[in-house]
């Protein structure tokens, strides 16, 4: 299907409402599509169905109380949100967290990234009619969630870490489970790769479907796998390394066309890179003495000095930034969250224009729009 972005939107079109409750919608998203047959003439996304006033909540909670709220942003990888927020507050306080805490954060965050990508790749398969890979991946995700559960009891909304470090050491189960788990994750990825990547139908359905140029992607503020799929090598872990990322040896996979296939494949490779990072971080972790501190010295009641900071990490979906303005009290004056989804979703109408309804769904899942993060 050739894209024709300049066609005037006139004439008799059928308006189809997809969402907020629709089997293919990930969370409560809604897209109002004007269609000509099955071709999308115009797609108007409507957001806000999951708006819970997260940023406003932040103004009424103390710095520590806000951590569980961040779980509910991108609920597929809550740990990444926790780390992003904690890192921002630590930057505001001007404290450096202990090495061991950093490594635990890296390990858990990369596990969360794998879990997030597994869900995204699996759901993309389901949306395109390939059901089986989803189960292979989800079983592995459950194993990862077991580690999370042993860490502090929660599987989905982890509330990981504290401001100034982490509250607990790596769980016992991690040491026994990880060597086996990384192989099973690789095997599941391999099976997904075999079932999908070179499948003729899969290739037809994904290659060249809503491609995006790197210029446009940068213009829209794309980050994360969606940007890397267009060919821009931008990864905060490499470009603005935090924790020990500059010491780890890992690749940043990039695509070429920014189409559904590239977004899918970039995610698939990133999982492998995350496994590598965890392995290296774990080796460094084992070199540390077992009684190394987990927390930096932090006052009981956190009252950062007046000022404002912006701090971002590379979350599974892209740059997840927290802007915090403090007025010197124990509650932030303002918290602004920069979720990667929000920027990516802006381009959605342009991406799907001229495509078919089936591609809209594929596009949405490959962008990995998470309503919790989008609406906040």
């Amino acid at each position, binding site marked *: *299907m050739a894209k024709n972005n300049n066609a005037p939107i006139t004439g008799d079109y*059928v308006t*189809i409402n997809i969402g907020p409750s*629709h*089997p*293919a919608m990930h969370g409560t998203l809604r897209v109002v599509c004007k269609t000509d*047959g*099955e071709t999308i003439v115009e797609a108007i996304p409507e957001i806000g169905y999951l708006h819970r006033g997260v940023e406003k909540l932040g103004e009424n909670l103390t710095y520590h109380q806000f951590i569980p709220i961040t779980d509910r942003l991108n609920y597929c990888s809550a740990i990444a949100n926790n780390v992003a927020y904690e890192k921002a507050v630590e930057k505001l306080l001007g404290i450096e967290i202990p090495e061991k805490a950093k490594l635990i954060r890296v390990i858990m965050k990369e596990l969360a990234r794998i879990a997030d990508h597994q869900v995204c790749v699996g759901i993309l*398969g*389901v*949306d*395109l*009619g*390939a*059901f*089986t890979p989803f*189960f*292979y991946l989800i*079983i592995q995700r459950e194993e990862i969630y077991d580690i999370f559960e042993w860490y502090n009891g929660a599987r989905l909304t982890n509330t990981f870490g504290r401001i100034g470090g982490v509250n607990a050491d790596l769980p016992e189960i991690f040491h026994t489970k990880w060597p086996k788990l990384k192989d099973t994750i690789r095997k599941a990825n391999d099976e997904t790769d075999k*079932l*999908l990547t070179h*499948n003729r*139908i*899969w290739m*037809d*359905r994904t290659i060249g479907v809503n491609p995006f140029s790197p210029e446009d992607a940068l213009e829209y503020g794309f980050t994360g796998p969606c940007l890397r799929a267009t060919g821009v090598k931008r990864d905060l872990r490499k470009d603005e390394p935090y924790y020990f990322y500059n010491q780890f040896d890992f690749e940043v996979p990039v695509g070429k066309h920014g189409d559904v296939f590239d977004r899918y494949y970039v995610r698939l490779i990133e999982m492998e890179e995350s496994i590598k990072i965890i392995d290296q971080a774990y080796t460094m972790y084992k070199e540390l003495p077992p009684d190394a501190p987990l927390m930096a010295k932090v006052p009981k009641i956190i009252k950062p000095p007046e000022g404002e900071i912006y701090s971002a990490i590379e979350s599974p979906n892209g740059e997840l930034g927290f802007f915090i303005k403090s007025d010197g009290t124990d509650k932030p004056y303002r918290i602004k969250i920069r979720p990667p989804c929000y920027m990516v979703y802006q381009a959605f109408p342009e991406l799907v224009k001229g495509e*078919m*309804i*089936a*591609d809209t*769904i594929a596009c949405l899942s490959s962008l990995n729009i998470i309503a919790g993060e989008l609406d906040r």
Partner: protein
Amino acid sequence: MDNWVIALIKVVFIWTWTLLIATLMTWVERRGSAMMQDRLGPNRAGPFGLFQPLADGIKLFTKEDIIPEKAHKILFSLGPILFALPAFSAYAVIPFGDKLVVNGKEIILQVADVNVGFLYVVALGAMAVYGIVLGGWGSNNKYSILGGLRSTAQLISYEVPFGLSLLAVVLVYGTFSLREISLAQQGTFLGFLPNWGIFKQPLGFILFIVTAYAEANRVPFDLPEAESEIVAGYHTEYGSMRLGLYLFGEYVNMYTLAALMVTLYFGAWHLPYIDMSKFLGPVSYGIASFLVFFLKTAFFLWLFVWVRWTVPRFRYDQVMGLGWKALIPLALVNLFITALCIQLTV
């Protein structure tokens, strides 16, 4: 016994048998997919969850029957019937075994040996699309209409290669009767190959199996219902047994198509190199031929399930592209080569 009593028994038997197989297939599909996906599947109702289809049936029958207010009442009710009825009737001309000799009376294991059996199956297969289109249209729901539209688009792209691949079989065997085609597949040709359709029509079989999947609305051609795109397609608004008829009709369709594959390409009830009628009694031969036929059919039924849980779904313009740009030219080439071979050898 009068002939019509025998005919009635055969009708009742094949009707019950088809229902039973279709019911079992829902169980096989769910357990089979579970097996492939590291799950358990339904395992609570009865041994191995075998009564699950029964439980589903009871559930569907006792659900409230809702007709949406804005729906076209007549078309809405007609849709599922038009879909299920041809599916149930199509098996009438397909054999399910060779023959049974009881008390010196020969009973052919086929409800009706119509001399245009072929056309009957193709015609009824095409009829089912009316059920989908009318159901989709009558529902007065945009997703349903899209489902119906996709179904028509799919029909015009697969029905032609479907017919053309069957035509090549007709050329090979020189008859439209499915029983005669089955009988003709006994023995060997070229000295070593079983006299099966697959060896005479390899390309034709591939074309047939691809179009058969489209005919059965199964993945990768399940676009009319594509649950992740258009909710449930043509049966979005349906509930209770009306939905049941659609779901059930699909499995009956699958059974018919699988039986057709066996009849046309896999030697019907014949075993390769072995002539069962020579060393089996008349009754046991009848039963053996039925079993052989059924086991072959069961393999193709399993293949339907297997493919369903392996591959992704086509987009609907891709189905049309595949139909018009690949399948029809190939079917024509196949027909041409078949005709040429027959012309040269006869």
